């Protein structure tokens, strides 16, 4: 990463300017409804966390350089300028108090896709040297070690051995021509080793041909979170190279919403090419297996379960019914949160917030919205399908002394598989 300067930052913002951005800024009438859609505003009540306000640097640059009236104002010395001091002031607004959950984009009456513009503005923040240390460190680790948490293959190898011992099954490594290349997230490997065990069991049960790749196991993309197209492209290219080398037809993103949007939607644009393979979230794959009758399950969880939709998976990727069909397989007493699916509330820790130590307090504040939602339906356990959401839910519930365990949907499915001999 070369020198970061204001001019580089502005240039990065100019590269992000497009017709939607111009249409959005032309339309905002400062109604403030987006504030009511944002957990960071709703739970702090501080107007500076109003989503559209977080975009002032981008808006000022747009007005100054992309509108006739703004250019005239500039010529006669009127109008604001984007300065280093301004960007420094906006850094916490664009990172600490925004998980890019996209709820504001769904609520804005004039149709502004605010989240889309936050993502763009972060490009300028990185290039001008105004991004949080925690995210910079994660990006550097991801580039250098392949994992944003600095996790190495040997750590995963130990886990693979544990899984193989526990299940008596083989975890396939570097299998050329497998149908699915399975990616993981470091957070998952460290916090939720049960995931790898679960898919090992499920894929054996359903007869799915799959593999891990020693060249690339990490699905997350720190470049997408911090807002650096260069870092994002480098990391995505590793996935593409691994998939191409093994000749797989499909790549599976793990229980991580961010990883899914990063690979599924941003990845091809980061490398400016379409993929020679398809990308699925594990939940989509499981739902396909269910539809094909390849998941034979027995018994149901009978305690009161509710579900947290990861923003990246539901609102930002349209995977909403899949997890509910899977819940139907294994849950006998499931109740949805009041606002769920595309209108769900963020847990507060996505979009890089979880890697940004400075945001710790805001992260817990934003969680209070989720907490209120959970309290409304009083579940005995929460189910989700994203390691970051799950960690945030666990930490938040713990913080507020709520005794509600959080489980991953994939492992819940694995727990209900009937033995293969009985399945015939």
């Amino acid at each position, binding site marked *: 990463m070369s020198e970061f300067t204001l001019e580089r930052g502005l240039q990065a913002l100019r590269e992000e300017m*497009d017709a939607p951005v111009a*249409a959005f800024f032309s339309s905002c*009438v400062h109604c403030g409804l987006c504030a009511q859609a944002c957990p960071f505003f709703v739970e702090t009540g501080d107007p500076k966390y109003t989503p559209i306000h977080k975009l002032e640097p981008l808006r000022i640059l747009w007005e100054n350089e992309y509108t006739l*009236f703004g250019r005239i104002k500039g010529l006669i010395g009127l109008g604001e300028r984007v300065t280093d001091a301004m960007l420094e002031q906006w850094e916490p607004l664009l990172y600490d108090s925004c998980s890019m959950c996209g709820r504001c*984009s769904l*609520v804005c*009456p004039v*149709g502004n896709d605010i989240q889309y513009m936050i993502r763009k503005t972060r490009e300028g923040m990185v290039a001008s040297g105004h991004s949080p240390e925690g995210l910079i460190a994660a990006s550097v680790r991801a580039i250098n070690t392949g994992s944003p948490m600095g996790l190495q293959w040997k750590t995963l190898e130990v886990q693979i051995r544990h899984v193989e011992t526990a299940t008596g099954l083989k975890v396939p490594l570097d299998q050329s021509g497998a149908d699915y290349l399975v990616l993981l997230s470091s957070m998952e490997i460290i916090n939720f080793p049960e995931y790898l065990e679960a898919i090992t069991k499920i894929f054996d049960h359903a007869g799915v041909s799959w593999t891990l790749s020693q060249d690339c196991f990490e699905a997350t993309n720190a470049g997408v979170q911090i807002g650096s197209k260069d870092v994002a492209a480098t990391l995505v290219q590793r996935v593409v190279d691994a998939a191409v080398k093994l000749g797989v037809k499909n790549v599976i993103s793990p229980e991580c919403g961010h990883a899914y949007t990063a690979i599924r*939607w941003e990845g091809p644009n980061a490398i400016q090419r379409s*993929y020679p393979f398809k990308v699925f979230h594990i939940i989509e794959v499981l739902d396909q297996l269910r539809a094909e009758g390849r998941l034979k399950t027995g018994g149901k969880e009978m305690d009161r379960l509710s579900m947290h939709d990861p923003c990246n998976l539901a609102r930002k990727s349209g995977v909403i019914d899949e997890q509910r069909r899977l819940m139907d397989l294994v849950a006998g007493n499931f109740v949805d949160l009041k606002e769920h699916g595309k209108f769900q509330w963020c847990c507060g820790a996505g979009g890089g917030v979880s890697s940004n130590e400075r945001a710790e307090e805001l992260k817990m504040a934003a969680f209070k919205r989720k907490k209120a939602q959970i309290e409304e339906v009083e579940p005995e356990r929460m189910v989700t399908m994203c390691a970051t959401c799950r960690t945030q839910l666990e930490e938040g519930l713990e913080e507020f002394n709520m005794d509600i365990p959080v489980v991953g949907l994939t492992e819940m499915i694995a727990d209900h598989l009937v033995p293969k001999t009985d399945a015939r």
Partner: protein
Amino acid sequence: MINPMEFLLWTKGPMFDVAVAVLALGLMVRLVEIFMLGRAHNYAEARGGQLGPGLKTVVTRFVPDPGTFQRSTFDVIVGTLWHVGFIAVLLLFIPHVELIKQTFGVAWPALPNPVSDAITAVTLAGLIAGLVHRLTQPVKRFLSTPQDYLIWVVTFLPVLTGYLAYHRLIGPYPLILGAHILSVELLMIVLPFTKLTHIFTAFIARWYNGATFGRKGVQS
């Protein structure tokens, strides 16, 4: 000093031409500025279409989701009320329908005068309530710039002068009618240079929003 009749004729003649020219040219510039920027090619495999979901979002954003309605009831009711009132009277008040008929040769049924009158009163009340809200509600006050108040004034004046003219509350009539027409011209002139452009660009913004989400399989 010109007399009221001359003033009225001036607002209906040369000034009207100026306002139409500024509005048309200004709006064209704004739209060209937007569309010139284009959109980068999207390499990600689409899950859904763009056109249909985009158009659907253009329509559905007139009505908020239940949660937003619950959390911002005042904004939604007052905002909807005066927008609808403004447009209804603009298009359905008898003299307006006449004017449209004379100018464009198309006509449609108008509202009875007492109905237009009542709608105007509600619209005025709505605009005033909106202003008070803008001055007092923390988020709105924080976001508001001088431009927000300017566009409130240029939106309020045509409704106010129209109401005053209809009820003959200020005389002589040519003076208040001229003032009404002039206030509309002011609105037309200010429109392209301010966020009043949302009258047109909000539909573009909604389409892009719906299309972006739609491509990913979500109806926004």
